[in-house]
C-alpha cells in the first residue's frame, strides 16, 4: 500500500556504503536472469489474452505469490521499516488488519465475480455492471495515477540508491526503466509475474538475515522490548492494540476506530480488492479455485512480512549505535538536512550494513533493486492493459484485430515507461509534487471500493447510481483533502480535528477518516440515485452480482482443497498474532 510518505527524499550529504566486486556479481546475475526470462517467454506471448492476462494459466501459488509481491516494493519495505522506527509496532497494522481481512474477502467473496465475468480489468467489470461512465472514469484515473506513481517511485528509488551507494540518479532511473521496459514489452504480464515471484524469494533471501541476526544481538524478543522501553522512555512502542484507546496514548496519534474502520474496512479493502495492479495478478489464475486460493496464499505470506520490515525498524531502536557507543537517533528528512543525521527511512539500509559484509550486502541491495523493478513492471503492465482495453479499445479503436491490441500493449508499455521517466524528472525538480501524487492516488481508492462492492453485492444498484456514487465519493475526497491541506496553520488544525474527530489526531489519522467518509458518501449517493432510477433485470446481471448469479462449483472435493478452509485457518492465525502482540 502507499507508504513512501515517510521516505525523506533529501539529497544525501554522504553515501552510506559502497559495493565490492562480489556484490556487483550478485547484482549483474539478477539483471542477466530477468532479461533472459523476458526473451524466453516472448514466444508464449502472442495473443492479447497471453500478453495482458498471462494466458490465464497461472496456478494458485504463482498468482498468490505474485499478488502479494506486486505490493512488496522496496520503497514499501524501507518506508514501513522507517515507520516502525518512528511509530513502533503500530506500523504492523498496515500488514495485518490493513491487508489480511481484505485479501481473504477478495478470495472468498469477490473473486468469483471478477473471474466468472471473464473481465480483463477492474474498469472492465465496472463497464459490465454499470456501463461506460463508471468504466471511463475509473480507467482514466487509474491510467493517469499509475504512470504518476511509477515515476514517483522511480525517482524515490534513484535517490535511495544515491544515498546508500552514491549512484548517479539518471543512471539508476534509466538502467531500471530500460530493463523493465524490455522484459515487460517482450513477455507482458507473464514476464512481470515471473519477476514478481523471483523478487519475493529474493527479498526474503536478502532481508531475512537482518531480523535473525538482530534478535540474536538483542538477546531475543523479550530483551528487545525491554531495551526499546528504556531507550525511548515508553513501553507504547511494542503494543499493537492496548495503546489505541485514545489519540494521545500512542506514538501515531490514532484511535482504534480509525485503524479498524478507516484502515481495516475501507482503505485496505479499497486497495486489495479494487486496485487493478494487484487484482490483475489473480485474474491470471487458471481456474476458479486457483483464483479464490491465490489471495488466501498471498494473505498467509503477507502475515510474515512484518518480520523483515517491522522487526528491523524495532531492532534499530535498541541496537543502532553511533561510533562512540551512544544510541543513534534517526530523524525526519527535514531535520537531517540541517543536522546531517540519518533519516527514518534509512533504517533498513543501516541495519543491512550493520550485519552484512561483501556478498550479503550485494544480495540485500539486489533485493531492493528487484523490488523496485517489479513494482515498475507491475505498474506498467497494469497501465498497458487498462490503456489498451478500457481506453484505446473502448473509445479510440473498437474493432481492431487481436494482434493489433498486442502491438498496442507493447507500445503502451514503452510509452508508459517514458512518461514515468518524465514524471521522475518532474519530481526531481519539484519534490513537493510527490506528496500531491500520493494524495491523488488516495482520492480514488475508497470510492472505487464503494462502487465495486455495491455493484457486486446489491442487485438494485443502477448504472446512474454507480457512476454518480463514484463521482461524488471522489469529489468529496478531494474536497476534504483541500480542506485539511491548505490555509493557515490554525485552519488546518481545526479542519483535521473535524475530519478525524479529535483535536489530538495526527496527519496519519486524516487519511483513515477521509477514506471512511468518502466511502460512505459514495455508497450513500449510489443507494439514493439507484432508488430513483430503473434497475437492470436479473438476467442482465447474471455473472456480475450476488443474488442474480449461480456461482459455479470450484471443483474442490476434500476439505484441504476448499478455499474457505484455508481462509479460516489464516483468520485464526491472524487473530492469534493480534492477541499475542496486543
Amino acid at each position, binding site marked *: 500500500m502507499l507508504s513512501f510518505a515517510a521516505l525523506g527524499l533529501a539529497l544525501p550529504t554522504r553515501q552510506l556504503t559502497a559495493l565490492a566486486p*562480489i556484490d556487483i556479481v550478485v547484482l549483474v*546475475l539478477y539483471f542477466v536472469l530477468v532479461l533472459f526470462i523476458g526473451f524466453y517467454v516472448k514466444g508464449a506471448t502472442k495473443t492479447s489474452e497471453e500478453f495482458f492476462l498471462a494466458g490465464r494459466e497461472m496456478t494458485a501459488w504463482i498468482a498468490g505469490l505474485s499478488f502479494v509481491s506486486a505490493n512488496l516494493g522496496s520503497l514499501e519495505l524501507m518506508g514501513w521499516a522507517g515507520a516502525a522506527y518512528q511509530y513502533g509496532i503500530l506500523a504492523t497494522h498496515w500488514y495485518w488488519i490493513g491487508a489480511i481481512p481484505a485479501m481473504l474477502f477478495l478470495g472468498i467473496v469477490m473473486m468469483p465475480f471478477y473471474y466468472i465475468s471473464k473481465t480483463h480489468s477492474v474498469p472492465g467489470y465496472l463497464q459490465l455492471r454499470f456501463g461506460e461512465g463508471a468504466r471511463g472514469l475509473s480507467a482514466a484515473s487509474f491510467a493517469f495515477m499509475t504512470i504518476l506513481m511509477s515515476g514517483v517511485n522511480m525517482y524515490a528509488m534513484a535517490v535511495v540508491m544515491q544515498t546508500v551507494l552514491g549512484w548517479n540518479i539518471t543512471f539508476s532511473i534509466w538502467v531500471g526503466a530500460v530493463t523493465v521496459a524490455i522484459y515487460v514489452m517482450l513477455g507482458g504480464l507473464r514476464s512481470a509475474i515471473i519477476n514478481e515471484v523471483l523478487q519475493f524469494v529474493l527479498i526474503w533471501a536478502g532481508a531475512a538475515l537482518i531480523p535473525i541476526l538482530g534478535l540474536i544481538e538483542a538477546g531475543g524478543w523479550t530483551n528487545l522490548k525491554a531495551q526499546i522501553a528504556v531507550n525511548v522512555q515508553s513501553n507504547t512502542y511494542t503494543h499493537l492494540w492496548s495503546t489505541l484507546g485514545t489519540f494521545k496514548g500512542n506514538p501515531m496519534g490514532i484511535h482504534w476506530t480509525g485503524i479498524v474502520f478507516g484502515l481495516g474496512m475501507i482503505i485496505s479493502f479499497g486497495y486489495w480488492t479494487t486496485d487493478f495492479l494487484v487484482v490483475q495478478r489473480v485474474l491470471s489464475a487458471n481456474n476458479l479455485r486457483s483464483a479464490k486460493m491465490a489471495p488466501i496464499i498471498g494473505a498467509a505470506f503477507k502475515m510474515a512480512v512484518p518480520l523483515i520490515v517491522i522487526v528491523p525498524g524495532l531492532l534499530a531502536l535498541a541496537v543502532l549505535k553511533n561510533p562512540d557507543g551512544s544510541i543513534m537517533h534517526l530523524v525526519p528528512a527535514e531535520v537531517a538536512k540541517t543536522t546531517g543525521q540519518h533519516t527514518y527511512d534509512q533504517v533498513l539500509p543501516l541495519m543491512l550494513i550493520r550485519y552484512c559484509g561483501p556478498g550479503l550486502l550485494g544480495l540485500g541491495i539486489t533485493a531492493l533493486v528487484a523490488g523496485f523493478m517489479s513494482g515498475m513492471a507491475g505498474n506498467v503492465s497494469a497501465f498497458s492493459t487498462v490503456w489498451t482495453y478500457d481506453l484505446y479499445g473502448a473509445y479510440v479503436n473498437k474493432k481492431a484485430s487481436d494482434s493489433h491490441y498486442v502491438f498496442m500493449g507493447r507500445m503502451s508499455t514503452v510509452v508508459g515507461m517514458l512518461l514515468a521517466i518524465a514524471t521522475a524528472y518532474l519530481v526531481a525538480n519539484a519534490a513537493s509534487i510527490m506528496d500531491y501524487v500520493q494524495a491523488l492516488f488516495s482520492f480514488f481508492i475508497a470510492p472505487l471500493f464503494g462502487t465495486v462492492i455495491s455493484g457486486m453485492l446489491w442487485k438494485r444498484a443502477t448504472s446512474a447510481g454507480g457512476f454518480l456514487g463514484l463521482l461524488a465519493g471522489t469529489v468529496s475526497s478531494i474536497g476534504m483533502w483541500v480542506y485539511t491541506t491548505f490555509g493557515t496553520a490554525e485552519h488546518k488544525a481545526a479542519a483535521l480535528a473535524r475530519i478525524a474527530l479529535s483535536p489530538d489526531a495526527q496527519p496519519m489519522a486524516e487519511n483513515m477518516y477521509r477514506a471512511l467518509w468518502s466511502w460512505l458518501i459514495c455508497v450513500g449517493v449510489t443507494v439514493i440515485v439507484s432508488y430513483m432510477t430503473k434497475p437492470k433485470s436479473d438476467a442482465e446481471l447474471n455473472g456480475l452480482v450476488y443474488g442474480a448469479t449461480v456461482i459455479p462449483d470450484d471443483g474442490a472435493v476434500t476439505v484441504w482443497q476448499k478455499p474457505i478452509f484455508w481462509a479460516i485457518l489464516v483468520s485464526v492465525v491472524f487473530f492469534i498474532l493480534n492477541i499475542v502482540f496486543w
Partner: protein
Amino acid sequence: MAEGTGRGERLSIWFFVGLLPLLYGLVLFPYGVWEAMGHEAPTVLNQLHPTMWWGLLLLLFGAFYVIRFRPGKG
C-alpha cells in the same frame, strides 16, 4: 507443460526460482568459507560467519528447486 512460462516452454517458473538462489549460493558460500578463514568483514556478529551459512542455505534451497523442476522432468 512448464508451469508459469507458457504452453510449450520447457523451463518452469520454479526452475528460475531455484536457479537464482543456486547461483547466489555458488558465489556466496565459497566466499563465506574464505571469510571464515580469517578474512571476516568488520560487521556485527561476523563471528557467526553469516555469509558462509546463508550461502549454504541458498545453495541447498536453489539446488532442490533446480533439480525438482529441471527441464524435461515430468
